[in-house]
């Protein structure tokens, strides 16, 4: 079962690497332009079809861009701005569904069945291994 042994180690190492990279990634940003780009990419242009505020040039998108730029210059955080826009236009404006009670199932379900099937498969394989 050498291969079995090795692979689990490798997967562990990879996870650690991904984790370190991840935190590294989170630290590096704090200027207004980057924030602006990041926020506008998260928002749906409500008068277009599946286009972000960032990509859109419609009047609606222009207005939202102005609001966001204003708020960023006043030193508001990303979260405050998003909360403001959600309160005003509803959750529909966010591309990424919020993690709340209503969307719980949406977020949990994929990982839940993923874990269940992984555990199930693992048990089957292990049982087979012992019985041989």
């Amino acid at each position: 079962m050498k291969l079995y042994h090795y692979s689990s180690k490798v997967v562990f190492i990879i996870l650690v690497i991904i984790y370190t990279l991840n935190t590294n990634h989170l630290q590096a940003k704090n200027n207004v332009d980057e924030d602006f780009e990041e926020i506008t990419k998260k928002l749906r242009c409500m008068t277009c079809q599946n286009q972000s505020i960032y990509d859109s040039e419609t009047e609606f998108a222009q207005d939202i861009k102005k609001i966001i730029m204003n708020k960023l210059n006043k030193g508001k955080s990303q979260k405050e701005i998003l909360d403001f826009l959600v309160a005003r236009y509803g959750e529909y404006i966010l591309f990424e569904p919020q993690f709340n009670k209503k969307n719980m199932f949406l977020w949990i379900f994929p990982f839940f069945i993923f874990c269940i099937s992984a555990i199930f498969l693992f048990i089957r394989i292990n049982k087979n291994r012992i019985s041989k």
Partner: protein
Amino acid sequence: MLSQIGFVFLLLSFISGLGIVFFYNLKKNKLFYYLVYLSFLSIVISFLSLMASYIISDFSNYNVFQNSHSSMPLLYKITGTWGNHEGSMLLWLLIMNLYNFLFSFNKILQEKLKKLTILFQTLLFLLFCAYVIFTSNPFLMNSINVEEGLGLNPILQDFSLSIHPPILYSGYVGFSIILSLALSGLFAGQLDNKWIKTLRKWSLFCWSMLTAGIVLGSYWAYYELGWGGWWFWDPVENISLMPWIAGLALVHSLIINNKAIILKNWIIFLSILCFALSILGTFLVRSGILTSVHTFAADYTRGIFILIIFLVIVGFSFLIFIIKSSENKEKINILFINKTTAIIINNLVMIIACSTILLGTLYPIIIEVLINQRISVGAPYYNSTVLPILLPGFLLMSVAPALSWTTNKLNNGKFYLYFFILISFVVLIFSFISESSVWGFVGILLAVWIIISSLFSIFINLLKNIKNLKFNFILKNNAFIAHLGVGIAILGITCSTVFKTEYKKNMNVEESFYFKSYELKFESLNIVEENNFQSIIGSFILYKKDKFLSKIEPEKRYYDVSKIITTEAGIYHHPFQDFYMILGDNNNERWSIILYQNPLVSLIWLGTFIMIISGFIGLKK
């Protein structure tokens, strides 16, 4: 006149379909097959007469009047036939019947199984034929005399989009024959190797065509929508992706050639699922529940009708599945890690990914119905759920074809492992230097790993067979070739999303814009009058260190008939990167332009091309 001919032959096709069902039990095989041919011939004539109405711009046909214009180029007149709801449903019927026709020449299967398959396919055809006749008749006459049509939606007036529907449908609708085959196998209780062989061939063909259709659609989205991307997790894209993923699982599970009944049941389940997802997608789009480019005219009755068809087909199929499927007493050989396990993992991963996409697509609808709130489930959701779920599958696919069926030994296993560690560190160092994100790291790691280990496996096999190389060699290594294609596509996908750079500028004519070692010169602005549109073409010249590279001509078109402005991106395909330009609006005599530098985009098309080709090569097996 053409409309009448078309409609009569549509009815004839329907009636001969009824005949097939009626004469199924007769001993006379000849009559049965003649009716199959007659039904096909009639639907071809029916389809051609609609096409002819489009070509000669016969506006007495209401469908032509609504979707065509005499000033359009001939190509778009022809392809306008399926550029609308009614016409595309007629194409749907044509392709469904084409599969029936082609299947009647099958020589592998036993007569009984073959006739049963044709019967089921005909029943499916009849359902959809009734749908077309009663709710979406493309042969309705115009009640008033008109001189001119209303024109085709300009964004559909494009070459790759005009051939996209027939190719996509060959896969999407083609899954109907897979369903028929599965049902007939169940019914006859003959799930032998011949049946599996036939199923594998047809599903591989359909799946490859579906791949080609989807890629064509994304390529179109890339240059036509002008957003610099090529996949947006748009509901309609998801809908074509779901049967694709289910088909992928099916194609893989069909590799298993042993007698394990549990897998046969699973194969049947997947076969039903593929077409079920196809119809579900059609229902969601054509009923107008999901709005998109493909939602031609949203109509309530059409939606209900497709929903009924969906429920009938799916309900019936699963009912037979439950009643007829044999119980399983045999064990399958699951080891860590042999080929069977690898295929099971592939299937699990695919099914979970598929259900996640389905959930994400339906969730906003469910929420809106239940608590009347609108939410959107967009790209970030899929990126953070579907991609991590696919990860184990990607990790495995590079070595999977090299695994053995019976033992858990991987030849050169240690080599693969050390190699993987080595690649990880190289990519790790690279990603620290280039400041890429986690996704960049994971994507490049996977891609390089898949590409190199596939090449390595092919190389090993090459050494073994160096003395007598034949076509057979390609067949044996086909799985590696397909996976190599996936690796190349992943590399392209990762690099083009993670390392994409974007420049937004306002430029005047004769002005230059410098970035990195490049210079982009705005040379001139030309207005061109075409037959059915006017266009403004910006002429830009790209230099690298004063050396001429290419001319890039982004374009904006105004379609007079439908009063719509479309953007046509100007793209310079360099082997290693695309320079992608959009001409924006004119503010104060300056033109806003957007320039994307997309590294390695061509690899996406190259990779998927390899996948499709190897899909077709696999048919030879």
